[in-house]
């Protein structure tokens, strides 16, 4: 993307309050009658940031996107999108500065790829429609399919056309709602590559997904929503918040008295033997603990095969939180 808008977008913010935030959401709530879609949601997204919005089905992700896209009015709370306060009157102005790619591509199947894009370019009242279409088709590697009917394209290609459509107006904020939903691994990889390219160009992306590896791969920060916002931060921060850090030690032979070796070591808070026979040590700081543990094992005449820090994935974080919610509901 070579537009002025894209070029002017700067590096991701840390998420702190600043006037340069692309999105500021404060205590936003949406209810449909008695049913709560989402409640008291607050966060900020900086310019150039890729922000992941995770949550199970029915958590309120799509409703949040629709609210920020001015398709749905919030019940309470406030939001500023691309520096424009969200209100009934500001809808068209906000929609002119953002793009939403919904879960379903929503293309006119009897129109060609270029005709679909031309329609949307004119809806945004863009100039140089032809060159913009050429540019976005090039960005999604579909230049050679411009004159194909959308109805003749595979699901993965339709998703790419939808992404091209979302890029047409060089949006200040690009909302992607489950962009890889229902795609095969190859098509998913293609979409990921496109999103990585956009991230590198500094495009602000609000990505809803329940594919955790996708969020981990693409996002600077993530928020986990389950009607209320459960956690927000960088994936590694979330792991640290929820999980203690572990070192996994594999030895040639099992220790006769592991407690004598591990107990009392500074930085080791607890330990246990895993079913595979390795030792998992819960440590305060792996970098400091590892040499001490190695020395203790050598001193005990034990051959060390490997020592590594065991990593919790974003999936572990997510499941931990959602399981907590399920347990809380049972109580």
């Amino acid at each position, binding site marked *: 993307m070579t537009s002025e808008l894209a070029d002017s977008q700067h590096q991701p913010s840390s998420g702190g309050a600043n006037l340069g935030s692309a999105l500021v959401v404060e205590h936003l709530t949406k209810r*449909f009658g008695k049913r709560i879609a989402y409640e008291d949601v607050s966060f900020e997204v900086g310019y150039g940031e890729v922000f992941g919005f995770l949550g199970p089905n029915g958590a309120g992700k799509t*409703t949040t996107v*629709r609210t920020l*896209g001015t*398709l*749905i*009015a919030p019940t309470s709370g406030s939001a500023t999108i691309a520096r424009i306060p969200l209100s009934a009157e500001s809808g*068209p*102005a906000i*929609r*002119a500065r*953002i*793009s*939403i790619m*919904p879960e*379903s*591509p*929503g*293309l*006119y*199947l*009897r*129109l060609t790829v270029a*005709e679909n894009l*031309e*329609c*949307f370019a*004119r*809806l*945004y*009242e863009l100039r140089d429609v032809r060159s913009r279409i050429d540019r976005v088709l090039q960005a999604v590697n579909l230049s050679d399919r411009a004159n194909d*009917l959308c109805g003749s394209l595979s699901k993965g290609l339709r998703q790419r056309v*939808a992404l091209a*459509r979302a890029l047409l107006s060089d949006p200040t904020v690009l909302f992607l709602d489950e962009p890889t939903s229902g795609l095969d691994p190859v098509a998913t990889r293609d979409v990921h590559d496109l999103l990585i390219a956009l991230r590198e160009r500094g495009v602000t992306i609000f990505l809803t997904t329940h594919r955790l590896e996708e969020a981990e791969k693409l996002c600077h920060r993530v928020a986990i929503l389950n009607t209320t916002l459960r956690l927000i931060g960088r994936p590694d921060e979330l792991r640290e918040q929820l999980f203690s850090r572990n070192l996994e030690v594999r030895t040639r032979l099992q220790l006769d008295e592991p407690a004598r070796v591990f107990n009392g070591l500074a930085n080791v808070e607890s330990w246990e033997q895993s079913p595979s026979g390795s030792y998992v040590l819960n440590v305060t700081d792996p970098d400091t603990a590892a040499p001490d543990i190695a020395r203790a094992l050598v001193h005990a005449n034990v051959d060390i095969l490997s020592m590594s820090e065991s990593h919790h994935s974003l999936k572990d974080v997510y499941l931990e939180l959602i399981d907590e919610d399920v347990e809380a509901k049972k109580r």
Partner: protein
Amino acid sequence: MSFSWTRVGAILQKELRDYRRNRFVIYTMSLLPLIFIAAPMIQIFAINVSTTSGLFDAHIGVTLLYMLILPAVIPSVLSTYSVVGEREQGTLEPILSTPIHSEEFLVAKALAALLPTLVVSYVIFGIFLGAVAAFAHPAVASAIFERNHLLVQLLFTPLVAGWSIWAGIAISTRMSDVRAAQQLTVLASLPPLAIVALMSFNVITPSLGLTLGLAAALLLVDGLAWRAVAAMFDRERLVTGRR
């Protein structure tokens, strides 16, 4: 942001392109006119000119009424598809996510139904007039070419279509099934035809003043219908599918 004819043009062009490749629309636009030109032709050539003047007027009235059923029915097919069709194919949310105003969207949809309707209706009426001039009994031709009858046809074609279009779009915004919407719209299209029928049958003598007055009234009703449909157009309900 003010009303934009560029955005209206974008939707209108998209709709017309879509019609050209939509078999259902092509068949409907081809078959309906054939039906509605065949029936009045038969009627015209079956008229007994020596019958009483009341019966003669009635025959002429029925014939001309056929010509105005066309602009009532064709847009009902197109306009009912306007919103519910977009919802069915999942294109409504992407369209409504653009800066388009509800009024622009509705005007574009209405024009997309009106333009083909006017073309088809006037062409069919032209063919009918040509056939009458060439082959009908001079007394019948004279009655058909009577100034007020022609004025009624020319003026009421877009106005009847206008009513039918707004009724169709209004129903389309509230329904989730295209076929049910079309059936309801055909029924909703009929009221303006009642006025036209009274004029065609000479129950109301179609003087120039009365014709223009009724046309102005129907134009006002069409305008109010546009505003009412725009007020009914609720993005949230349309996107979430909630009633």
